[in-house]
């Protein structure tokens, strides 16, 4: 007779085998390829990666951090309005609107933004029609600004959804008490509500950070020119030169960047638990 533990292991094994074959094995492959040349340890590929792509590394980190900061800000405004808003009409409209980009694929978002943010895209055209801008002032936003706009547009609903869920589950009495003592809604949000849901916000932001770091289609389609993001550089090393070693060195650098985000998150979690 099979024991329950053996049965459990038997049931879970096929799924684990797939993850091992398509994630752990290629991960090991990428590490070996990045750190070795003809079987011997070397840092040559990292030297080459830094020489060729150090601008893009800085560019990638700045873009992803800026996008995360703007996403957090937008999500806080949306979730805060949904939780503390007093006008039912505004709250209702916002609730109906904000989730639209939630499941829209990045590649579709990229195509939307390619048309919307172009020099003669709908955004500039609308500004000109409203008299806010002269036609000659119109410029294309299809560079780093376009990448950030696409990331924020796509990720804000996700972060706002999680944040609004967390805000809805905290104790209303404290918030009401703050309001009754004369605190403005902004103050109640920043000083009473947000500290209680910081953990949720950080989880959502770390997930968004890694997602943005992995997306190939947005930098590829929204901004064609240099500098660009590391994902595009990796694809270029492979497709143009078949240069797996340098591409994998760049890959290891993206692992380290995302590990940095995870460590920041974990350290905050630990320092929060310590005083208790």
């Amino acid at each position, binding site marked *: 007779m099979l024991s329950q*533990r053996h049965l459990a292991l038997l049931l879970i094994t096929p*799924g684990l085998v*797939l*993850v091992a074959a398509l994630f752990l094995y*290629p991960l090991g492959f990428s590490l070996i390829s990045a750190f070795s040349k003809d079987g011997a340890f070397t840092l040559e590929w990292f030297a080459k990666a830094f020489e060729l792509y150090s601008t893009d590394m800085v560019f990638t980190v700045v873009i992803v951090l800026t996008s995360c900061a703007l996403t957090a800000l937008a999500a806080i405004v949306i979730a805060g309005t949904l939780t503390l808003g007093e006008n039912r009409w505004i709250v209702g409209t916002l609730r109906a609107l904000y*989730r639209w*980009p939630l499941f829209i*694929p990045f590649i579709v978002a990229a195509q939307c933004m390619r*048309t919307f943010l172009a020099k003669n895209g709908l955004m500039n055209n609308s500004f000109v029609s409203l008299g806010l801008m002269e036609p000659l002032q119109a410029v294309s936003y299809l560079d780093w600004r376009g990448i950030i706009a696409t990331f924020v547009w796509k990720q804000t609903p996700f972060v706002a959804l999680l944040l609004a869920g967390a805000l809805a589950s905290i104790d209303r009495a404290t918030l009401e008490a703050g309001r009754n003592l004369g605190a403005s809604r902004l103050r109640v949000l920043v000083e009473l509500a947000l500290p209680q849901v910081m953990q949720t916000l950080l989880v959502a932001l770390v997930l968004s950070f890694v997602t943005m770091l992995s997306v190939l289609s947005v930098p590829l*389609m929204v901004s064609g020119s240099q500098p660009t993001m590391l994902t595009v550089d990796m694809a270029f090393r492979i497709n143009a030169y078949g240069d797996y070693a340098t591409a994998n060195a760049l890959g290891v650098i993206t692992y380290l960047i995302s590990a940095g985000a995870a460590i920041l998150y974990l350290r905050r979690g630990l320092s929060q638990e310590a005083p208790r």
Partner: protein
Amino acid sequence: MIRLAASARMVLAASLLAAFAFVLIGPILNLALWSVAERWYTPYKLPVTYGTRYWEQVFRPTGDAMASLGTSVWIAVLTVAFALALSIPAGYALARLKLPMRALFMVMFLLPQAFPSVAIYINVARIFYQLGINGTVLAVVLVHTAHGLVFSVWIAAAAFAAVDKDLELAARNMGASPLRAFFTVTLPLAAPGIIASGIFVFLESLDEFTGTFFVGVPQVTTLPLLLYNAAMGGNYQVASITALILLVPSVLFMLFIERFLRADVLAKVGT
């Protein structure tokens, strides 16, 4: 005076909301405009001539788009079947059985999502190339399954955990075998959550670009790849129509997800 201030605030709030709506809907509207624009060039703010010529081109039965749509749906269906075959047993084991190192296994399924994926996919492509399966539907299905497995396993585990244990015990007490209790009681009760996870995996597969870009080319052209090729080739109309086709299931899912994923299941995801 107070009424004046109140109405000023109202106007401010309404205009902020309008600006937000413009930013949110504008890009999608621009996409929709391009899909029916037969000619559109500067300095015209709106298309010069409208028409459905490109829609006809895309939906022509022999066209690239219909072939890509077929490929995409076929790959997504296979991915769902494969993912569910792996995640129903795994989810049951995680939710119901005594499993050593349970937390570690939960994290294992999350890992493919937690790492920047491009660096993984280039190596998967290399391995597949050595195996001679690069550029096949099988290769794409495998990559999509590994990518979607975290959703299907975690949601299946949550769905099984939300099923009342007493119902299973009642079936067992009345003489049902463990297998029979599973198929007649536990599985049907967990079905809504499992269907939700299947829809999730289906959409993830339909929308997936990066993995297909590396392991599917040049033989396998899914809709996202067709969209990419059309956009890079400067054919904004075909790119926009393809994007709209991909948009429909995503928006429908967004509107109906709460029907499928009940709150009690959702609360147990990832625990």
